[in-house]
């Protein structure tokens, strides 16, 4: 396969870029939209040879933006791709950029941990770490009615979900799903410790085959809540255990597997 062109020298084919670093402003070509300009790679000509297949819908995830027919990169990171099938919409799979960042930007459907900062009339203002506090209606709790208000105080932690989140409007949260059930959302219990980590670590910890979580689960009896906005809330039997857990979780972002195993074995001995 021909060497990849230097960054910035023109659009590159997304499929050849998987796992590589992309920069904001770069343009990516999808196999379907790759025209005669991208005939350099053998794979590409093969694709064009067997043309008649229908154009598949491609989903562009976080870090990518559609601009007319073009696909632009908006975040710096590694380009990832998921093959279609298994819940992911679109026949062409999903492309996204795996980026590192600390600033959270509200996204519709995300589960986050917020802090109630104000109560005004029938709305709560919730700080979620975004550019603007989110609003949360007092009716958006399980079993809440006009007469039966939920018991939420300023300073409480809320685990909720965004229903409105776009760049032009105030984000809006709810603590119920479409069936009106809480499903674990609502006010997070008393005590515990809240701390912040990078957004990348949250995704790493929530990945289905995450070893860190499995190992931590064997350590102590504990409860833990992950918000996609980079907040983690932990609670164990004692304050000491809670602090240990928080430190381990914070540190494990930049640890190798061996280092982690060492620390976990040391902790389970004590």
């Amino acid at each position, binding site marked *: 396969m021909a060497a990849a062109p230097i960054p910035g020298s023109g659009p590159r084919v997304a499929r050849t870029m998987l796992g590589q670093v992309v920069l904001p402003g770069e343009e990516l070509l*999808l196999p379907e939209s790759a025209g005669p300009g991208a005939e350099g790679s053998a794979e590409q000509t093969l694709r064009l040879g067997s043309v008649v297949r229908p154009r598949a819908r491609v989903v562009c995830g976080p870090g990518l933006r559609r601009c007319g027919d073009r696909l632009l990169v908006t975040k710096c990171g590694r380009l990832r791709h998921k093959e279609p099938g298994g819940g992911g919409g679109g026949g062409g799979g999903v492309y996204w950029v795996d980026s590192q960042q600390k600033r959270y930007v509200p*996204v519709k459907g995300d589960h986050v941990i917020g802090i109630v900062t104000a109560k005004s009339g029938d709305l709560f203002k919730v700080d979620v770490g975004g550019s603007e506090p989110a609003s949360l209606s007092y009716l958006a709790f399980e079993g809440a009615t006009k007469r039966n208000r939920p018991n939420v105080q300023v300073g409480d932690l809320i685990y909720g979900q965004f229903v409105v989140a776009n760049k032009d409007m105030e984000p809006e949260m709810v603590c119920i799903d479409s069936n009106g059930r809480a499903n674990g959302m609502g006010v997070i219990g008393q005590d515990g410790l809240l701390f912040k980590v990078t957004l990348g670590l949250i995704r790493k910890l929530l990945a289905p085959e995450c070893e860190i979580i499995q190992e931590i689960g064997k350590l102590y009896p504990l*409860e833990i809540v992950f918000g996609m906005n980079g907040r983690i809330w932990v609670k164990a039997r004692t304050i000491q255990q809670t602090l240990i857990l928080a430190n381990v979780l914070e540190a494990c972002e930049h640890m190798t597997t061996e280092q982690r195993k060492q620390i976990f074995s040391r902790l389970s001995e004590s």
Partner: protein
Amino acid sequence: MAATSKPKLSKNLMRMKFMQRGLDAETKKQLEEEEKKIISEEHWYLDLPELKEKESFIIEEQSFMLCEDLLYGRMSFRGFNPEIEKLMVQMNAKHKEEDVEDVTMEVDVSDEEMARRYESLVGTIGKKFAKKRDRAQYDEDENGNIKPVKAKKTFLKPQE
């Protein structure tokens, strides 16, 4: 002088309903046309080329949930919060719902248990429909199963 220049009534006046009776066909038509012209002129539109929205094959989706199959964000381990542990199983099973569901369906009630239930059901339902007098005939045996007891009523001689 008065005969040559008959004062003409204004157009707006002629357009009024009560003035239309006296009009002849031609002036009526003329007035109608003028009216239509005025109406169409009053309609305004943007002088733009027609917007053509092409169907896009790229869908934007800003959530990582779709991309990475992330787990549910609440967890509990080693029985710290049983409620959450139950929820975890339920929420995280959603990914594999298709293959999980039919297994759990079978586990719910086994065939043997079903057969046993129906066996005792005959007696239970039978008791329900039996008359009060006959109800005594249904008796529970040592297994808790209800069986009809066929005992003939006979006169018991009082003992002295």
